[in-house]
């Protein structure tokens, strides 16, 4: 009996068994993640608190280091910013007046507000991908907090990405700069449709692709690009970024160029998850 057991424990047999097991895992992962979901939840209850703790330590250390380094530059910047604040306050007052006027006009025409203030949840980024290939990250809110798949994620006023996986106490955000990410977008003022595509080869430049504008349009550098009204998953009118170097394609039918994202993806620490989903908005 003992001999039989130890014969089975021969490394070659184990290797073959594990290979078959992994192949089965890979095979099923093409179709469903139901096999993995319970395992994920089990591991995440152990790992996520640890990860949160490590993250706090990391942030604390990085914070102390930055404070020392940036003290000087901050003092200088403070002077400059003070001037900017004054001018912004003035500008803000003006804008407020304009927005009051807009409200009045809207009431006058009995228009509903087009973009109601969506309900949002703040979440903290607690982990990045384990590989260099992706710019996906984990946040510390999950199905317990009412997060669902396909909810839009924003930060700093711009679009970050979309929720692709939800666990009990975490969810995974796929960013728009990721290689296989496609977002239907439009020019904010004219509503001309285009597509925003992530590309890993542009990672160093901090830009992503902007494609499929109709030819004949004139798009200047710095034009605002927002999510389009025809997108299935993204809510309309969220700022994605600014157009750059848009030129006519060799086929003479479309134009493409680059987009400078509104969000600084290297330094995201907190994000807002919009609880309103596009599909539900359309149903209701």
């Amino acid at each position, binding site marked *: 009996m003992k001999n039989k057991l*130890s014969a089975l*424990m*021969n*490394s070659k047999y*184990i*290797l073959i068994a*594990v*290979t078959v*097991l*992994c*192949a*089965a*895992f*890979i095979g*099923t*992962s*093409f179709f469903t*993640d139901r*096999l*993995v979901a319970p*395992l*994920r939840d089990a*591991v*995440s209850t*152990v*790992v996520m608190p*640890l*990860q949160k703790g*490590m*993250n706090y330590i*990391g942030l604390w250390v*990085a914070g102390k280091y930055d404070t020392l380094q940036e003290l000087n530059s901050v003092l200088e910047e403070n002077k400059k910013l003070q001037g900017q604040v004054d001018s912004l306050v003035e500008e803000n007052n003006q804008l407020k007046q304009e927005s009051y006027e807009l409200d009045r006009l809207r009431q006058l025409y009995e228009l509903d507000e087009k973009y109601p203030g969506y309900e949002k949840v703040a979440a903290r980024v*607690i*982990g*990045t*991908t*384990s*590989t*260099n*290939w*992706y710019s*996906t990250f*984990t946040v510390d809110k999950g199905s317990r907090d009412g997060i669902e798949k396909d909810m839009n994620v924003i930060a700093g006023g711009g679009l970050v990405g979309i929720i692709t*996986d939800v666990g009990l106490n*975490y969810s*995974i955000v796929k960013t728009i700069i990721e*290689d*296989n990410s496609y977002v239907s977008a439009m020019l904010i003022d004219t509503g001309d449709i285009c597509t925003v595509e992530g590309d*890993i*080869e542009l*990672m*160093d430049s901090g830009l992503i692709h902007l494609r499929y504008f109709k030819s004949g349009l004139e798009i200047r550098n710095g034009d605002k690009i927002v999510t389009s009204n025809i997108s299935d998953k993204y809510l309309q009118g969220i700022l994605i970024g600014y157009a750059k170097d848009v030129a006519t394609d060799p086929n003479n039918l479309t134009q493409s160029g680059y987009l400078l994202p509104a969000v600084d993806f290297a330094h995201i620490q907190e994000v807002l998850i919009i609880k309103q989903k596009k599909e539900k908005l359309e149903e209701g």
Partner: protein
Amino acid sequence: MKRKLAELVLVLFFYVLQVSMGRAVCIGGIMPNLLVILPVVFGFLNGKNEGMFAGFFAGILYDLFFSGLFGFSALVFVYIGYFAGVFYQKYEQNEMLVPLAVLVAGSFSFGFLSYVGNFLLHNRLNAMYFISRFILPEVIYTTIVFVALYKPLAYLNTKLYSKDKRRMHNFDERNI
């Protein structure tokens, strides 16, 4: 048994380090792959079975939260652990160049297979760019981390070894 538990804890610890500290230590957007180190070290020091054991769990964790293909990294890591185990007890423990060579070969093939699976099939044919921008820097960075970590890990391993039962030793020897 105790050593296997310790290996599991180490895998978990390295995983948490990888996902939380990865962004802090990355150079030019590249972070070292800490998890691939463990199957190499344990395979070389304790034999094929333990290399595969560490590789399997490291790979599963690696896949669990981010990879689209669940089981892919586990498969590659198991093979890396197995091949590291081929050199078990053929060299002295302080002969660091042997596991280092396995690590370089292993993490390069892991990177290349990831590229093929995730990008080549997705019409990103610029292989040289991916090799020079992602795979090789990651291999080099991982190698440097490995050199720093090998001695402490080997020391920890001997500590765990002497406390473990003699039976385990005999058991492993059959699998050389």
